[in-house]
């Protein structure tokens, strides 16, 4: 039996879509059958990140409206065997779908796939309610900013109210150097407020922008630190126990200095 996981955040721009794309490619590279649903109807992005934009014929609303069969709307990824995308409609809005239909869709997809990942739109209105309707598990993405953490907290409350207990947290775009200087919220500060299990931390990394522009995922870049962080998260998602990576990434000299107390 597979699993339906929604990736959500409340606030926009914190990395939901990037996370969805990377976790999807990560799971697919391990040989799982994975489908990504872009639930952001009207503002679709996930297809662009995967470089599949020009292959869209049918979308989620076509499937739900019965204009096509589910299989016809699924787009096979270019690189990863076993990875599929169900794109969002760009010319409609969130009211084109209701939670019951999404629930049914997820059940249908579970018959063929081991992982169904749903990229939730920003906000807490209908788009959010649609996205979480069929999910069994939730991943909350936040960045180390007060506003993002506040929204994450609100979303966790709503998830709990919707019986999606025990959501897990990904902290995105952390800058260890700023945290060290006290200029950015630390992992501890965020966990202190949100009080949920931490799935992983992604360091700020310009490689994400570079790979996104190429329609690739940073996870497949062996050298990227953020890619390593995503690979670790995928393994944790499967239940493996992977320690948090050393985000300081400081050179030998800095580490030596810190060791002898010069900070």
């Amino acid at each position: 039996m597979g699993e339906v996981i929604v990736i959500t955040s409340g606030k926009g721009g914190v990395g939901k879509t990037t996370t969805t794309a990377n976790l999807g490619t990560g799971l697919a590279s391990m040989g799982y059958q994975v489908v990504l649903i872009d639930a952001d109807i009207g503002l679709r992005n996930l297809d662009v990140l995967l470089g599949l934009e020009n292959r869209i014929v049918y979308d989620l609303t076509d499937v739900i409206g019965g204009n096509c069969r589910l299989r016809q709307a699924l787009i096979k990824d270019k690189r990863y065997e076993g990875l599929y995308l169900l794109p969002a409609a760009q010319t409609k809005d969130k009211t084109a779908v209701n939670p019951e239909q999404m629930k049914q869709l997820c059940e249908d997809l579970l018959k063929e796939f081991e992982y169904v990942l749903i990229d939730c739109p920003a906000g807490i209105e209908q788009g959010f309610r649609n996205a979480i309707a069929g999910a069994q598990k939730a991943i909350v993405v936040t960045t180390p900013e007060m506003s993002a953490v506040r929204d994450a907290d609100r979303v966790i409350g709503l998830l709990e109210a919707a019986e999606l207990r025990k959501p897990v947290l990904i902290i995105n775009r952390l800058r260890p150097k700023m945290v060290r200087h006290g200029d950015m919220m630390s992992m501890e500060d965020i966990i202190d407020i949100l009080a949920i299990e931490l799935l992983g931390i992604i360091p700020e990394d310009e490689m994400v922008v570079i790979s996104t522009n190429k329609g690739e995922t940073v996870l497949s870049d062996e050298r990227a630190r953020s890619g390593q962080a995503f690979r670790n998260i995928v393994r944790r998602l499967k239940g493996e126990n992977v320690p948090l990576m050393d985000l300081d990434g400081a050179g030998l000299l800095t580490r030596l200095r810190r060791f002898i107390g010069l900070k």
Partner: protein
Amino acid sequence: MQFIDQGNLIDDNTILVRRTLRSGQKVNFSGNVVILGDVNPGAEVKAFGHVIVFGSLRGMVHAGADGNEQAVVIAFRLQPTQLRIANHITRPPEDGSAAPDQPEIARIKDNVVTIDTFQSGSERQIPQKETDRYLT
């Protein structure tokens, strides 16, 4: 063994909230509110009586909301966004002073909302009913 007069201590107009209040969540009650958990930023607690938080209070709190100036707010970590007692409204100083590391109590003293370290024991900090007698 000496029993205390329990009759005087009964105050049945109290609710116990056994969870953390997250942003956007609200408790509104016409008596005392006891919270076993945190009150996060963006959450609200409004009570006619006292508010006691067994956790960090970071949201908005209003004790004595019907005008009761005897009401108090106690929290393990008192760091509210805004604290109101009766018709007094206060907010924390903006100098970013260090977070408290011990339980504190907020109450009205001489018409000003005052924050003190909470001490249990001899000094009675929560006003009881008029007839209040601890030991008989």
